[in-house]
């Protein structure tokens, strides 16, 4: 009888609290639709990992499925890198290739990463932990996982939850920051599509190859991240492996997302997650998103000092990687200010640039701090 009740006897207040947190994450995924593909498995993973004597976690001698998946897919960085193949196959870099100056916003809107990195150091975290917290501002789940896994594996749970939750909260986080930093007149600036030039298929095919090569040569530590992203994109743009491209976009993305999410839950044990530092990480994650947004908007305003054809500064906010949420948010904000102001092309091209910028930022952090 005792054996049957050992799970109940072994319950701790921490484990019960983690059941609540797992439930909350599942609720956010289902009721609020906040990144449900990731938060749903993470939520259940967190519950399974905190059941006393959970066979899902197992022991050092006999690791359970969650531990095995974590060791196989996260510790080796396999799952986040495979997700990059899928993301690359889903992304159409066309709008960015048509208007390459938008790449600069993909750089400016990484400011939040570095602001938060310094803030975390001031708050008492080590440099490597701070880098892992700052990278939440990459607004790019797989990059956050790779950096945190390399520098601060003990913080992987809260960092991943923060990264994915805040990506889903972009429609709530970004608009107030944009409004605070822009005037109504600036938000009404219209941008024509004259800057968009048609691009050849050859350019679309060469782009992923040359970007992978250049990024690899300049930042070798980013080779795996950017290489997998560009590999997925090459599958898409080559036009000769449609089956593989669709497989990467659907089957690969779905299977790896399931495995990634449930594995992350494995590190959300009460001993590691229930820490005051978790709350601080969640708080600094928001700060990273806010300063990313501010960096992009202020950079656009700075450029406007010199440009004849002004840029709508809201576009700068799309330089964060949260694709395509950020682009949609700015597009809708533009329409709300002026129903004739269609910023979608600019917003999406900038947003795609942000995807590239966040991966480069992750690679640079790995190179400079590793």
């Amino acid at each position, binding site marked *: 009888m005792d054996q049957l009740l050992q799970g109940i006897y072994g319950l701790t207040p921490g484990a019960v609290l983690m059941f609540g947190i797992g439930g909350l994450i599942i609720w956010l995924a289902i009721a609020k639709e906040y990144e449900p593909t990731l938060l749903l498995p993470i939520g259940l993973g967190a519950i399974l990992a905190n059941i006393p004597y959970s066979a899902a976690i197992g022991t050092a001698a006999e690791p359970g499925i969650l531990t095995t998946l974590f060791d196989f897919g996260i510790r080796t960085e396999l799952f986040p890198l495979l997700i990059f193949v899928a993301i690359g196959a889903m992304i159409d870099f066309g709008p*960015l*290739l048509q208007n*390459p*100056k938008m*790449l*600069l916003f*993909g*750089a*400016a809107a*990484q*400011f939040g990463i*570095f*602001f938060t*990195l*310094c803030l975390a*150091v*001031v*708050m*008492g975290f*080590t*440099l490597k932990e*701070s*880098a892992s917290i700052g990278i939440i501002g990459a607004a790019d789940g797989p990059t956050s996982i790779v950096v945190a896994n390399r520098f601060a594996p003990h913080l992987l749970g809260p960092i991943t939850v923060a990264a994915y939750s805040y990506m889903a909260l972009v429609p709530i986080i970004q608009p107030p920051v944009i409004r605070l930093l822009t005037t109504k007149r600036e938000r009404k600036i219209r941008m024509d599509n004259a800057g968009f*030039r*048609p*691009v*050849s*298929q*050859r*350019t679309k095919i*060469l*782009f992923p190859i*040359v*970007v992978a090569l*250049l*990024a690899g040569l*300049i*930042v070798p530590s980013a080779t795996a991240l950017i290489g997998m992203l560009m590999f997925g994109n090459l599958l898409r743009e080559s036009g000769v492996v449609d089956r593989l491209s669709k497989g990467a976009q659907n089957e690969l993305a779905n299977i790896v997302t399931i495995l990634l999410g449930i594995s992350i839950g494995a590190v959300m044990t009460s001993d590691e997650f229930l820490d*005051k530092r978790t709350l*601080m990480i969640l708080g600094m994650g928001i700060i990273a998103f806010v300063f990313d947004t501010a960096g992009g908007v202020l950079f656009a305003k700075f450029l406007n000092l010199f440009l004849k054809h002004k840029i709508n500064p809201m576009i700068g906010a799309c330089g964060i990687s949260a694709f395509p949420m950020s682009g949609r948010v700015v597009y809708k904000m533009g329409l709300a200010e002026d129903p004739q102001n269609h910023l979608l092309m600019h917003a999406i091209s900038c947003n795609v*640039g942000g995807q*590239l*910028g966040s991966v*480069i*930022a992750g690679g*640079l*952090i790995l190179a*400079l*701090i590793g």
Partner: protein
Amino acid sequence: MFENMLSFRVHSLATVSFDDPVLMEALRVSGIALLAIFLVMGLFGVMISLFSILFPATEDETI
């Protein structure tokens, strides 16, 4: 000395010392990384513009 973690953090913020080698290293890394991101993205932009000149879109692709 500190009642709880939060007050310790507030204290940390209030007594930021720019002599702290870790903070200096963080500022150095951040500065270099931000500059490098702009350079790399600028390089990509130049590369795309070159491709557009070398391989202009055909009439079919323009449509």
